[in-house]
């Protein structure tokens, strides 16, 4: 069985046109779950997360020849996933144009009926709280709270300064707490 490559070996494979396809297959194998679950936390619905994950890898494949390896592969994939998720959320928001209370209500109903959501009432409430955050702030919160990513890496993913990220995360925490205790 082929040995799992580390990040630098994978980058070497990406640079070699003969090995690029193999490198992409490894990327999918190694990062598909991270990409999917980051997308899922952002967009909540499984079908949407599936779309985001597929689009992320298709974009990564198309851009693979230009990837210079200046950031970690996971950072790069997170960056594409975040952007794809924000694009999808923005598209939905524009189409729907419904008030936030209604959005929260619909999300809770959707999660209750969702066969791919096994969370309890408090987890549904947390999802509702998350959906009241501005999408970019939600992305910052998810990467810090769930993935425990360092601010420096989140900064590379979002292109926002570390100071602004800290402020954003702290405000997100306060907003979610207020929602959970209301």
């Amino acid at each position, binding site marked *: 069985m082929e040995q799992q490559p580390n990040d630098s070996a994978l980058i070497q494979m990406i640079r070699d046109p003969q090995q690029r396809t193999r490198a992409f*297959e490894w990327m999918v194998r190694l990062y*598909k779950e991270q990409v999917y679950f980051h997308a899922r936390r952002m967009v909540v619905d499984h079908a949407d997360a599936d779309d985001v994950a*597929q689009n992320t890898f298709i974009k990564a*494949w198309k851009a693979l020849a230009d990837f210079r390896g200046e950031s970690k592969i996971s950072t790069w994939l997170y960056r594409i996933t975040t952007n794809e998720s924000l*694009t999808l959320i923005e598209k939905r928001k524009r189409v729907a144009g419904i008030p936030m209370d209604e959005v929260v209500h619909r999300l809770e109903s959707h999660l209750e009926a969702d066969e791919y959501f096994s969370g309890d009432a408090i987890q549904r409430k947390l999802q509702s709280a998350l959906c009241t955050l501005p999408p970019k702030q939600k992305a910052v919160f998810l990467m810090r709270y769930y993935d425990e990513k360092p601010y420096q890496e989140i900064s590379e993913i979002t292109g926002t300064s570390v100071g602004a990220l800290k402020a954003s995360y702290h405000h997100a925490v306060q907003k979610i707490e207020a929602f959970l205790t209301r």
Partner: protein
Amino acid sequence: MKTDKPTYHQEQEVLKKDAPSLFSLDKTEGFTVPEGYFENLAGQLRRQALPLSDGFEAPEHSLEKLENAIFSKTTAAGASSESDGFNIPDAGFPDRLEEAILLQTTQAGDTVEVPAGKGRVLKLVTRFAIAAAAAVFIWLAATPLFQPEKAHCKTFSCLLKETELTNEELLMLYDEEVVNELLPDHEGFEQMISEDEAMEYLLDAELELNDLLENETL
């Protein structure tokens, strides 16, 4: 996964005091996937993204169909081959954006003093004057520090006058990159944040403001 553990845990300890409900929750989210999903995803991506090559025979017209399917999928999501994953619609977009910003600032009656021959700075100052004014608007609308007698302001330019802040001060409230470019000798942005709660609030407002700017609602 590499994390800044000491800092992370110190931060969580501090935040627990402010948000006990959130930090007492189990981090399990309850998201599940259909059986065999990840195995199928890998296969699906291989079929969609990788070129059919040596050793495989493609049915007639299947390559065109595959290309069309991927093309329609990626263009529908606004995709391009940019490696960073962030895209703009087409080559004419920057010009149209600049026109839209200039049109809006002219209509709003905002005036910004800019040295002659500083075209890029003009664009940045104009953009961030709007953004900063909007940030102040959000701040003033939300903060109890805002005096009721100033509530007659309905426009950004009025608020600019009321707050008696200079354009430079307004810009400082908004974007580190631009502040660095325009005011290379300013004090550290992060220090400013830690010293000023109002600044933190504005950074939060800035995130929402970015959404507004992207939607061209200002």
